């Protein structure tokens, strides 16, 4: 029995932390988020060299061939410093192709995604905000040369920088399909929005008569299960990144509470300050436990993997936004300033809430899974 990380994973955590402290301190993060793409291509290339971008990709396709638990370790660290990058989106796109791409599609895309020379993302949500697989409305119609897509995908994470979109749609006959849409292809338009969390980027994908040739259709049969699996992996990964961010926010606030004095004492002496911080610690430990288990269960294909993911994301979606608010509140006036970093963390917790399903979505899903 060992509900902990392997030595290699602990080493990786140490290396990741050192690397990020050195190359991606929050001062740099602040600069990067002001750029149009919202992240540093240079850092991304370094992350690729470290193997992070190809962590999940099988070795025969140029990746490292490791599991979600290992990726989670990296994401906790990137979360801690709010390091902006399309790591989660890219990992999901690669996982989609690894799960149901043909050998040709895998050979075509996986090495570049693994090396970070192409950036992938999942484009799934549509108007109506239905995350569940059943909510896919975008229809693919038979046409000369393949399937024709007309419509839009919203809230597409990392759209502004993505080269490749894994798009969910309804195939003729009603089955769920997944297709590969390249930036720059005929009829493809990518819009960038200002994200609530500046260290994340978001946009929309408009499809106007985009034709998916056979080389762009990921699975011939129903891809509903794959899509469901991708949404679960996404939920587990954003939770890991979110809990890392929460740890960062707690550390910043603890330090502030030790340094800031009022009424002749550090404010951390007062229970009105120290008790909310202790409650944050309880939530962080609990989310870690739930998220670690969820990642393990997904890796192992355990029976309770779906339940485990929804529990982790539901708990995190409730607790972390509150944590973000409390951290700002405990800073007093400076917490409200643009200059102090804690506000960036608050924004991350707000970004996390809907990402891959909020508490409402996951609790209802748990209810449905329980009845089944």
């Amino acid at each position, binding site marked *: *029995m*060992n*509900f*902990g*990380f*392997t030595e290699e994973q602990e080493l990786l955590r140490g290396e990741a932390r050192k690397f990020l402290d050195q190359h991606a301190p929050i001062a740099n993060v602040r600069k990067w988020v002001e750029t149009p793409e919202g992240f540093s291509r240079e850092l991304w290339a370094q992350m690729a060299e470290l193997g992070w971008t190809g962590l999940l990709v099988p070795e025969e396709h140029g990746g490292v061939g490791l599991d979600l*638990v290992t990726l989670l370790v990296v994401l906790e660290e990137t979360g801690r410093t709010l390091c902006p990058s399309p790591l989660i989106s890219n990992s999901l796109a690669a996982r989609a192709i690894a799960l149901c791409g043909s050998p040709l599609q895998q050979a075509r895309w996986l090495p570049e995604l693994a090396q970070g020379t192409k950036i992938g993302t999942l484009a799934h949500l549509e108007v109506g905000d239905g995350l569940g697989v059943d909510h896919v409305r975008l229809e693919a119609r038979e046409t000369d040369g393949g399937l024709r897509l007309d419509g839009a995908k919203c809230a597409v994470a990392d759209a502004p920088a993505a080269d490749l979109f894994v798009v969910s749609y309804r195939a003729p006959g009603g089955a769920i399909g997944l297709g590969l849409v390249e930036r720059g292809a005929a009829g493809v338009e990518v819009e960038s929005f200002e994200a609530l969390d500046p260290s994340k980027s978001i946009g929309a994908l408009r499809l106007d008569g985009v034709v998916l040739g056979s080389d762009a259709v990921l699975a011939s049969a129903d891809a509903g299960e794959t899509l469901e699996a991708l949404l679960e992996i996404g939920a587990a990964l954003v939770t890991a990144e979110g809990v890392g961010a929460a740890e960062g926010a*707690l550390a910043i606030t*603890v330090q502030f*509470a*030790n340094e800031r004095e009022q009424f002749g*004492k*550090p404010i*951390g*002496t*007062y*229970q009105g*300050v*120290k*008790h909310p*911080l*202790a*409650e944050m*610690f*309880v939530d962080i*430990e*609990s*989310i*870690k*436990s*739930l998220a*670690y*288990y969820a990642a*393990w269960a997904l890796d192992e294909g355990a029976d309770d993997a779906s339940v485990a993911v929804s*529990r982790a994301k*539901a*708990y995190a979606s*409730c607790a972390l936004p509150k944590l973000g608010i409390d951290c700002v509140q405990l800073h007093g006036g400076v917490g409200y300033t643009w200059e102090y970093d804690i506000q960036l963390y608050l924004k991350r917790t707000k970004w996390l809430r809907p990402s891959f399903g909020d508490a409402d979505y996951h*609790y*209802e899903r*748990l*209810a449905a899974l329980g009845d089944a």
Partner: protein
Amino acid sequence: MDFQLSPKEEAFRDEVRSFLDENLLPEGERADDFVGTWFQKIREKRWVGFSWPREVGGGGGSIMEQVILKDEMAQRKAPPLGSCFMGLAWVGPAIIQYGTDEQKQRFVPEILDGTYHWCTGYSEPDSGSDLASLKCRCEREGDEYVINGQKIWTSIAMWSKWMILLVRTQTAVLTKHDGITCLLVPMDTKGIDVRPIRNMSGGAMFAEVFFDDVRVPVENRLGEEGQGWQVTISALASERSSIAEVHGLIRRIAEIGDLARRKVKNGRPAIEAPSIRRRILEAETQIEAMRLNGMRFLTKQLKGEPLGSETSVNKLLRAKLEVDLGELALEILGSDAAVRKGEGTLDGGRWQDLSLNWPDVVIGGGTPNIQKNIIAERILGLPKD
């Protein structure tokens, strides 16, 4: 990560399972002396005091085996692993660590056999959370200690034969933790007066205990004079990973789910109300977090790292759940919850009782505020208040 048991651990689990299959009869089929026989059998297997060294009569079980044993027992709703609750939880461990050979030989077998009950005389009217400020006076006269003072909240004092008692033998001390001495006191000693206290639920499980010139032989001292604080603290620390408590909560939330299916409220089963469903699922999620936290703490222990203040995490989660589950059950019961006992009261009024019993856990085990102080000061490194 790996949740597999080793072959040896698996063999032990199978042994526990087959013992349970054989000896844990369904409730309807149990003989009158079922519980007595049960205790005798688990004693023979050395499962009482399973973590204690074999030379004092314990089982010498490894940490993982202890968890397996508790886990299997809790899942099957078996009776407890021994009847002398406080003796097994902290009096025994304190005697094993600090007792003289005579004390070990005298008390440990009786704790294991559950010959009688022990009670714990720590809290005083003016010393609760701030236990080390205790004042119960004690002076040495020749070969005897003479005790004058009062204890309070002493659980099961009225049914106990012995008490583990903290007294103050020295008042001129540098810190309040010094000058405290631990004594083992027979409850039938002259000068002890036990007065039960009724709690809000109506029962009387704890008492005030008054000491009026109570004389105890010096050989009843546990540890050195003035060392009482260390004696108690290290023994309380032997309470650990909360694995068994989690099973109780898992069962309770399942029963509350079942209640919500049976109880009709606003013309439909309560479970069909999304707000009720959400609260049940939130509680389930918190219980699962507690279970998994416990597994992470256990992993630490298995790696040989001592468990520190992080156990306060699960104490806080549990305290919250004890209150929340009581309230949730009453919310499900709707206006039936206004009746404590009456015709048609669901489950014999169990949920109403439960909603009045949470202080057993929430106050009795150290209050949430104190747990939060522990986390904030010892883990996060904030200044002491």
